[in-house]
Structure formats: C-alpha cells, structure tokens
C-alpha cells in the first residue's frame, strides 16, 4: 500500500501522531528522575506524609529534553493541521468532497470495520482551534511548571491529552471518537491529580473520573445500540446518509418507546452531559481546579469539555432525525438539550457570582458557556453552537492562563512579603523564579490562599500584561459588543433563539430568556472578577508584591496570553451575519463565511427531501433582526455596568466583605457560594450509600461472609477428609503394610528355631525324610504291596 505523504487524505493520520509519539518518547526515554529525600528543596512544598521517604524528582536534563520533545510534537501537529486546513479551504464543496482515508480494523463476519480519518468542514474548523490553543498552553506550561519536580511527566501527559483530542477531532467513526474521549478522560484524571500528594487533588481526580464515567457508560450503550441497528459507526455512512437517518428515525427503540434515533441521541447527550459538565453531572469541574492551571486551560477550555459539544455537533443529523427544530418540531434529544443547556447556563452563572476563588469563577463560567452551546444545539442552531465552541475555547483558555499568572504572581508576592522577617524557609530564594510553585504550600501560615480574590486587588500595576489580556478575555466572555469574538458567537445563538421565539416555538423561547439572563450574569461576574483582582488597591501584602518577575518563566507565561488575546478578538469576525450593519459588509460581503463553510457538513437538502423523517438541514441563518442584537448589547453592557457599579466605582477595601452579600441577601449569597449544596446532596444520596453498600454488603457479607465462608467450609471439609484418610492410613494401610511384615517376622522368629546348630538334629530330619520318601516310593511302585 503506497503511502503518499503529499496526499491530503493521508495527512490527517499524522496530525495526532506528533503529540502521541511525543508522549511515548517522553515517558519511555526522556523522563529521567533521581531519588531525593522528601524534605529536599527540589521536591518543593512540604508534604508531611512523605517526610523521611526518598521521592522521585525529575532530572534537569530530562526536564529540558521532555519539554523539547513535547513542543516538537505539538508544533508538528500544528504544521500538519494548517497544511490540511489550507488545502481544505481551497476546496469549493468540502462537504461533498471530504478528505478521508480509512483502514480495515477488523473483519466482523461478512462486513469489515474500518477506522480512519475524515476532514470535513467541521473538522477543519476544529483543526484551526485545537492545535493553536494547545500550542499556547504548551508554551505556558514551560514557564508555569518550571519548578515542579515532575515537569517532564506533565509534558508527557499533556502530549497524550493533545494527541487524544486530535484523534477525536479527525476520527471518522464514533468508536475512534470514543477512544479519544476515553483517553482524555484518563489524562484528565492523571492531570487533575497531578499533585497527588495533596488530598483534595486526588479526590478531585477521582471525582472527575467517576462522574464522567457514569456518563461514558451510557454513551457507550448508545454507541452499541447504534452499531446494532446500522452495522456501522462511520460518520459519513450514518450522518451524511439520509437513508440511514430515516431508518433510525423510524425504527422503534427497544426501551422507553420513541424512535431508535431518539434513544441513541439521548444516550449520547448524557455522555456529553458528563463530559461537558452540564447539570446535573457538572460537579466534577469546579473541583478539577485542583490541577495545575495549564490543565484547567486545556481541559476546561480547549479540549475535553469541547469534546463533548464536538460529539453532539458531529452527531447532529442523528439528533434531529424525526424532528425539525427550524420549524418547531422537537424530539426528545433536542428537548433534552435545550432544557439541560438552558438550565445549566443560568444555574452555573448564578453560582459564579458568589465564588471567591479566581479559578472557580472561571470553572462555573465554563459550565455556563457550555450550557449555552448545548441549548443552541437543542434549538437547532448547529452552526451557532460550533461558532461559540471555537470562540469560547480561545477566550477561556486565555482567561485560565491569565488566572494562572495571577496566582503565580500572588504566590511570588506572598513569599516576598514573608521573607522580610521570616525565618525558617528552606527554599532557595531568588527573585525571578521561586520554589514552591505548587499552589498549596504548607508553611506556618498556610491559611493564605493565593487564589482567593479577596486577597488580591490592584494587580494591574504590577502585572500589566496579565491585566490587559485578562481584560480582553473577560470582555470576550461577557460578549462586549462588536469587537470581541464572544459577542458574535453569543449573538448568533440569541438570534437563532429569537427567530424561533417569534414563531412561537416553546424551547426557543425558554432558551432565549434563560440565555439572556445568563449572559447578563456572565458579564456581571466577569466585571466582578476583574474588579476584585486587578482594580483598586492591593488588599494584602502579597498582592502588593505580586509579580511574575523577569526571565524565561515570565516570558513563556505572557506570550501565550497575547496569542490567545489576539484570537479572542479576531476569531469572531469570520462569523459576522451578512446583514449586520457595517460589519456585515466588511467581513461577510457575499455570505457569512463561517455559516457557509460549516453548513456543508450536513447532508444536502436535495438528498434529504425524499425522506419524511429527515429534516431539511441546509437552513439559512435567520434573517437579521435588531431585537436579538439589541438584547445582546443590553445584557452585555448592562452586566458590565452593574459589575462596574458594585466593584469598580468603589473598589473593595481590605477586610471588607463582598458587597454582593448586602445586595442579594446573605442567605441567597451563602446558598450560591455553596453551589446550591449539590455536592453535599450527591454525597448523601450516592456516595454514602455506595460506601455503605460496598462495606457492609459486598465486603463483609459477600466477600467475607459468603466467599470466605465457602472457602473456609471447603478447608474444613478437606481437613476432615484428611483426618479420615489419616485414620484409614493408620489403621488400614499401616495396619496391613506393617502387619504383613510383622507376621512374616513372627513366622521367621518362630521358624528359625529349627536352626539349632546341632548337626545330629539335622541328620535326624534327613533320615526321616529319606524314610518317608522311600516309603512313598515303595508304595507307589507297588513293591510293598507285593511283599505285604
């Protein structure tokens, strides 16, 4: 089989190859470590559990080599992706002439199962976003994790993660997508729990894994059912094929009623609810902030949570089979998505306003924005959801990285504040790079939380680049009109929702209202975060001295911010609606480029016409209406203004409590801050009974009682049988075995007395014997008879 690397159909195979190969090389070759005692400064931090033990610490050569390998891997992926994207954009109808290549994976009887790659318009768009975001995060990690003893391992894991995400993006069938999905789940576990010495970290990792696992199992059921009905999992064969869609829409599902398409759709959506942290399976995402910030950026912005939405967008034709969202006909999956998405959006936004941890706000913001995307899909705004996915990835990654810089700076400031007059730190104190990178050092005053926004303030002066990039990202998140990417994507969702609302479709109305509210809150909490962190005066000593310092570390941490900020502004301009005043003429002279490009992913209208249960998919964007635009302007600016009023006009003073508490009431605020007590509820309803069950039923009753009991019973029976055999052995076998020789010996002892040693006795016997023989002989030959 000829492999022509210039063939654009083959190139997509190589895209994930770079990072995956980097993972293997780092893990197997370049990740060199040495053993040091746990109290050494190289280990960083103080982990009392590990004191006195030798621990692994990466060697410097290994660290550098791993960084190089990781960077090479991701740069390779970026180069090849850009190549593929370039070629894809030059094809006029990419939707019909996709780049694809597949290989036989296994023979399943009379069919074969293929695995391969597919580049259609949606993949192309993802291939722009993912490698760029991942590259930025990799660069950021060089600096952020520079003092971590296990940086090489970190790079290995994020390489694997990137490889898995790219695999998922270029996959041409649902199974390969699922493989990438699961690998990312594993990586998220390992990365969230990267600082595994800390209890909250590893607990968070387990929580993330378990929660997504629940969803993944159901998703797998959906995949299996789909395969059972159609005999294939290839996207082109199912989703671009109206005949298969018709079949799925009309086949009744084996449980729950409804059509097979609906059931599969619901199951896949449940998978996404877990992976993309929608209500009610969102609980893992905030805790996942225990991982290093690059991980949060990657997992919760660019990659993993996007994967969930990606999967839904990918399977969109399946989800709409049997319904027509653009004309008000909804089926179960669409309804589920609209409701769950909308509820999640508003729910998470309300929690975010009451969080004090800078990363937690962003975590809930992510949940909320994913809710936006899911709601958009629920009302059929397929392209709007994809658009928002792309822009969100950029500005959320930016926000996370910027918050990481803030935290880094705060820690730095904390150490500086304490070195004046503090004794006993055994970490080496240089100015540009400090030890104790981990955000949870346990010094004597461990109460200080570098992530608490209440401890910050005034950071715009000492960390200007961070401030501006954070601002750009935050405004993009809030949807600041016209100049930020977030505005355009959010506006498109609202436009689609409004369009449906005017036609009286219920879900559209729900989505419109809730999403508008959520957008308002988004802008509010963004402004709050900006105000508490950067505006005003420093509220603690640490904030006063916060800075990233100079040198490679700070450089690698600011360059990605600038990169992402650029995209956070400009990424929106590919999706300007044509009829938008001024901007439409500039950016979308003939048609909305993004919309026009993306719509090709869906089957053509001519193809779907013939099938009653497959809706028309090439639907134009809703006509330009001023109301949704005005709403977008209103909620964004309104929220920002409200935030300005509360937190900027009169910045928070040290020791003051959050003014929001006064505004909404302390009980409401406490509920929001405690996340509606959902974690506690889950703990009580699911965790505690599970633990009880596993302890009392499985461990004690089944394992120790039944299984051990059974084994003990067997042991006892065996011992009893053994004793029985012992008795048999002693009496019977030994009896016989010893008895026979005894008898023989007895006989021998009795018989040997014949040997008296007296010759005359022997002779007597001889004589008697001779006599007897003679007599017998004589009698037998008749002589005696003749004589007698």
């Amino acid at each position, binding site marked *: 089989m000829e492999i022509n690397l210039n063939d654009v159909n083959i190139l997509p195979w190589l895209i994930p190859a770079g990072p995956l190969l980097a993972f293997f090389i780092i893990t197997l070759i370049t990740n060199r470590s040495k053993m040091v005692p746990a109290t050494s400064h190289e280990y960083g931090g103080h982990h009392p559990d590990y004191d006195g033990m030798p621990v692994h610490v990466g060697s410097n050569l290994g660290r550098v080599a791993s960084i190089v390998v990781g960077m090479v891997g991701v740069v390779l992926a970026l180069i090849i992706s850009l190549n593929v994207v370039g070629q894809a954009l030059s094809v006029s109808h990419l939707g019909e002439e996709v780049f694809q290549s597949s290989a036989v994976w296994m023979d399943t009887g009379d069919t074969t199962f293929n695995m391969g790659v597919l580049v259609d318009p949606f993949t192309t768009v993802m291939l722009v976003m993912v490698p760029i975001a991942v590259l930025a995060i990799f660069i950021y990690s060089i600096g952020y994790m520079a003092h971590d003893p296990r940086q090489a391992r970190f790079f290995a894991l994020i390489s694997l993660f990137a490889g898995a995400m790219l695999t998922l993006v270029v996959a041409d069938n649902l199974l390969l997508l699922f493989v990438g999905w699961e690998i990312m789940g594993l990586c998220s576990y390992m990365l969230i729990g990267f600082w595994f010495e800390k209890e909250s970290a590893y607990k968070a990792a387990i929580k993330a894994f378990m929660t997504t696992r629940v969803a993944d199992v159901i998703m797998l059921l959906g995949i299996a059912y789909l395969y059972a009905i159609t005999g294939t999992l290839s996207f082109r064969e199912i989703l671009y094929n109206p005949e298969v869609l018709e079949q799925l829409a009309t086949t009744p599902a084996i449980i729950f009623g409804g059509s097979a398409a609906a059931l599969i759709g619901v199951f896949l959506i449940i998978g996404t609810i877990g992976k993309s942290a929608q209500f009610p399976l969102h609980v893992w995402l905030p805790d996942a902030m225990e991982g290093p910030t690059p991980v949060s950026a990657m997992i919760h912005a660019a990659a993993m949570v996007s994967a969930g939405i990606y999967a839904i967008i990918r399977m969109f034709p399946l989800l709409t089979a049997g319904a027509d969202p653009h004309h008000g006909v909804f089926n179960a999956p669409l309804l589920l998505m609209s409701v769950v998405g909308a509820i999640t959006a508003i729910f998470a936004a309300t929690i975010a306003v009451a969080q004090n941890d800078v990363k937690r706000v962003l975590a809930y913001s992510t949940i909320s924005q994913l809710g936006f995307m899911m709601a958009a899909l629920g009302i059929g705004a397929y392209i709007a959801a994809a658009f928002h996915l792309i822009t969100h990835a950029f500005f959320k990654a930016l926000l996370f990285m910027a918050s990481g810089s803030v935290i880094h700076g705060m820690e730095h400031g904390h150490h500086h504040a304490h070195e004046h007059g503090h004794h006993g730190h055994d970490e080496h104190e240089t100015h540009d790079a400090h030890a104790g990178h981990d955000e949870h050092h346990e010094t004597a005053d461990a109460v200080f939380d570098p992530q608490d926004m209440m401890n910050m303030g005034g950071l715009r002066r000492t960390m200007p680049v961070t401030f501006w990039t954070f601002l750009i990202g935050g405004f993009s998140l809030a949807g600041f009109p016209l100049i930020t990417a977030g505005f355009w994507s959010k506006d498109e969702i609202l436009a689609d929702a409004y369009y449906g609302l005017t036609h009286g479709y219920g879900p559209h109305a729900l989505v419109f209202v809730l999403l508008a509210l959520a957008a308002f809150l988004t802008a509010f909490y963004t402004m709050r975060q900006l105000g508490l962190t950067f505006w005003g005066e420093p509220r603690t000593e640490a904030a006063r001295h916060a800075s990233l310092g100079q040198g490679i570390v700070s450089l690698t941490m600011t360059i990605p911010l600038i990169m992402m900020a650029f995209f956070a502004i400009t990424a929106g301009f590919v999706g300007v609606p044509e009829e938008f005043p001024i901007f439409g003429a500039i950016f979308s002279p003939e048609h909305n480029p993004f919309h026009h490009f993306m719509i090709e992913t869906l089957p053509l209208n001519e193809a779907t016409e013939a099938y009653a249960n497959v809706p028309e998919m090439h639907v134009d964007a809703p006509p330009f209406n001023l109301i949704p635009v005005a709403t977008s302007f209103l909620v964004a600016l309104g929220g920002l203004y409200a935030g300005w009023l509360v937190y900027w006009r009169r910045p928070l003073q040290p020791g003051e409590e959050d003014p929001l508490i006064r505004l909404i009431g302390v009980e409401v605020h406490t509920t929001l801050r405690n996340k509606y007590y959902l974690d506690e509820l889950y703990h009580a309803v699911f965790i505690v009974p599970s633990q009880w069950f596993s302890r009392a039923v499985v461990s004690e009753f089944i394992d120790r009682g039944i299984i051990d009991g059974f084994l003990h019973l067997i042991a006892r029976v065996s011992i009893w049988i053994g004793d029985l055999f012992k008795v048999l052995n002693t009496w019977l076998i030994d009896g016989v075995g010893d008895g026979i020789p005894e008898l023989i010996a007895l006989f021998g002892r009795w018989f040997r007395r014949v040997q008296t040693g007296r010759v*005359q*006795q022997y002779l007597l016997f001889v*004589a008697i014997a001779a*006599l007897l023989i003679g*007599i017998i002989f004589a009698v037998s030959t008749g002589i005696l008879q003749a004589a007698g």
Partner: protein
Amino acid sequence: MIEINAQSIAFLIFSIFVLGGGLGVVTTRNLIHGALFLVLSLFGVAGYFVLLAAPFLAAVQVLVYIGAIAILIVFAVMLTRSMTHLREALNNQWWLSALVGVLLFVFLTVGVILPVWGQGSAFMEQPVSEVVGTTADLGVALVDGNQFVLPFEVASILLTAAMIGAIVVARDDDK
C-alpha cells in the same frame, strides 16, 4: 531251610559279633568299652569277608580298620578323656532316632531286601556261581589301565591329603 554246616555256624557266630559289637558301640557309656566293642564288630565283619571268599579284604579289614582306625579312635578317646564317664550317653532325641532306625530297618528289609532277593523271589532261582575272582585278580584290577588304576591313584592322593589335613587340623598351635 538252611542246612547246618560249618559255614552257617560261622555265619551265626560272626553275625553275633557284628551285631553285638554294634549294639555295644551305640549303647555303652564308657567309650573305651565302646571302642572295644567296635573292634569286636569289625572283627565280625572280617569274618564275613572270609565267608564271602574275599580273604584279602578280610585281611585288610583287620589291618586297617582294627589296626589303624579303631586304635585311632582309642587314641582320640584317651585324648578327650575327661568326658568319657561323666555325662549321659544319649541326647534328647534318642527315642526318635531309635524309631527312625527301627523303621528304616523294617522298611529296608521288608520293602527292599526281601522282595528282591528274599525267599521266593526271582533272584533265588538262580544258582550262585562258584567261579570266584582271586586276590591276584584284585591286584590286577587295581593296577590295570582299563580298570581301577585311576581310582587307585586318586585314593592314594586322597589319603595323603587327609593325612596332611589331619595333621594340620590337629596340630597344637602353641608350638
């Protein structure tokens, strides 16, 4: 019946010597007496030999048996003298031995001798030849290459060996 002539009377006398001597040998407690009884018995046997027209053997019997062996036995008795009188003559299986002896005799006589050579048997019909080999014939027989020269020589070697053996066995090792 048997006629009474010199031959039969001689036979009778010699029989008494033989059997009486024999009985005396096995019953006497005093071994010197036993030896003398043995001599008597041997003498009777010599007489038999005369009656049976084997004078040379009779002479040899007297010379060798009585003159050498019996004397040897007397020597042995003398040399083991402390034991001649003191003990019982018979061991504790004597009655069984007697029984065996009697039975053996009865069997031999009744079962073997009388049927084959006794009165009324086929043997008795045949006359006894009067042509008898002489002593000279015996001499020739003992040295004739086709007859008994080899056993004769071997017998002499045997005697030599026995003599040497007896000397060796009976030699007193102290000297």
